[in-house]
């Protein structure tokens, strides 16, 4: 019998040490407790909590989700309990789990982002922050922070000043030049980047002659967007030096491998949690198997080995 080699699954993202490279994507794993019995926060290298805003938000009118070919649209609308409830009600239970907690935040103004970052800076159980920059910048007339390099840079700089731990910026793919945004954010002090957030999308109910979603448009996720996510990762990997966390349509370990090989230091899974709550476990064992077959002892050595 062949001896089964143990694979070192640990990865480090700008100093943030994760026991494995599979992270729960914001908005798809709630606050960690919902999947009880199906998947545990402790299964993941890290959990990124649902985007939290200063004040609670009710979210968009339903219907909020709809299936498309190999994908889904959502228009949850950043529905969340607000920072106070997040901190008092949601966080205590999650902290007890054996995982790294990354808080994802959003605001309508730079000030709101900075305020949230400053508060999170003081919460020792949360070692990292993911900035959701896909929100409309109300002061700039609703242009998303994430679509303009200058806004993205200004936002990152301001948050950087208020936040001393690991700062991750999550990029939107709905831009002409994601590499430009990535460089702007990198030079403004981001420690790492997550990419990608959802693509803008829409679906029409031809019987009702109305948009399917109550909010008309939504964000596309799932296997349909994987090629776009890989493309963006590839572009950004060649444009910045900070570590990258890849996501978009990862359903199994083969998908995860495509991202790691292309340049991701870790991956996030979003929609996959809905489809298969044990995706995290399946992916981790698949990754270990691949490493064994390919004589790779440390999973971190997979990052960016793409031959072109």
């Amino acid at each position, binding site marked *: 019998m062949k001896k089964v080699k143990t694979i070192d699954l640990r990865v480090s993202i700008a100093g943030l040490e994760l026991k494995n490279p599979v992270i729960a994507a914001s*908005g*798809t*794993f*709630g606050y960690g407790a*919902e*999947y*009880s*019995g*199906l998947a545990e926060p402790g299964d993941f290298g890290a959990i990124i909590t649902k985007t939290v805003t200063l004040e609670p938000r*009710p*979210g968009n*009118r*339903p*219907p*909020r*989700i*709809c*299936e498309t*070919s*190999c*994908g*889904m649209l*959502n228009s*949850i609308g950043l*529905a969340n309990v607000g920072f106070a409830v997040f901190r008092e009600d949601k966080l205590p239970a999650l902290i007890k789990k054996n995982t790294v907690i990354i808080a994802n935040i959003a605001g309508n103004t730079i000030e709101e982002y900075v305020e949230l970052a400053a508060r999170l800076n003081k919460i020792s159980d949360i070692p990292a922050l993911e900035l959701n920059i896909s929100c409309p910048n109300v002061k700039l007339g609703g242009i998303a922070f994430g679509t303009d390099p200058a806004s993205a840079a200004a936002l990152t700089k301001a948050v950087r000043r208020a936040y001393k731990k690991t700062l991750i910026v999550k990029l939107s793919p709905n831009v002409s030049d994601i590499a430009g945004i990535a460089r702007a954010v990198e030079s403004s002090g981001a420690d790492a980047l997550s990419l990608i957030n959802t693509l803008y999308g829409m679906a029409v109910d031809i019987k009702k002659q109305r948009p399917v979603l*109550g909010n008309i448009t939504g964000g596309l996720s*799932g*296997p349909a967007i994987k090629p776009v996510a890989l493309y963006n990762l590839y572009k950004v990997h060649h444009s910045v030096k900070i570590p990258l966390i890849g996501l978009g349509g990862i*359903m199994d370990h083969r998908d995860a491998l495509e991202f790691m090989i292309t340049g991701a230091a870790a991956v996030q899974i979003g*929609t996959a*949690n*809905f*489809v*298969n*709550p*044990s995706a995290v476990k399946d992916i981790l064992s698949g990754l270990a198997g691949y490493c064994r077959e390919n004589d790779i002892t440390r999973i971190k050595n997979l990052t960016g080995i793409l031959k072109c």
Partner: protein
Amino acid sequence: MMKKILQIKNAPILFHRKVSSCARHISLSLPAIAGTAEPGQFLHLRISSGSPSPLLRRPFSINDVQGDRVSILYEVKGAGTKLLSKMLPGETLDVIGPLGMGFDIDPQKREHLLVAGGMGLAPMGLLARSLKGMKLKPELLYGCRSSAELVKPGITGCQISSEDGSCGKKGLVTSLLLDRLRICRDPAVYACGPWPMLKAVAGICHKNNIPCQVSLESFMACGVGACQGCVVKNSDGNYVSVCDKGPVFNSRQIDWDQDCVI
């Protein structure tokens, strides 16, 4: 009580048959779920494991539990249920369940009226069984479009209505309900069916001050309250997720003026 939700990746199909022009009955071997399932809870099925399409799970009420077997009753609507209808005994399904909050039974009530419209019959099997287990007498009021769509309910004490009069009383199930309520002393109503029917049933119950529980539908992703995708508006104007706060709600909790979300 802590709900115990499980993912069973390979639940074998025991039988699968057509039970009306549009409905099918499928029975799964699910010992781990059979023991804890409550009436009104649902299963979240992954219909084509290994293929990215259909992508999301599909929710189906638990129709009945017998020993280790859990069954569902469903109608072919779109791609997912069409694929499901082709599956054969011996094949397996990836199941998450039991999910959601089911019906609450108040044993003090004298009459227990189960009001079902079309596929709204689905949860009534297990509900009737539970009532009987508590020595209570379920009465089913079941409306369908026509005799072709009628599914044999397998519940004693059943009144039927059909829209075209081809079976039972001609008309809507609400008229059966109104008739029955006239001679009820202290009824409780449990309803499942399309939104307009539920709205009508809720309206009747509110007017007559009768406790009414409704099982709602919504598009679902996670099924466990994590994604906030399946919300409806409650009577306070807040959004509540159907998958974990429901699918069964007290009818007074719901804002019946909103558009149907399906």
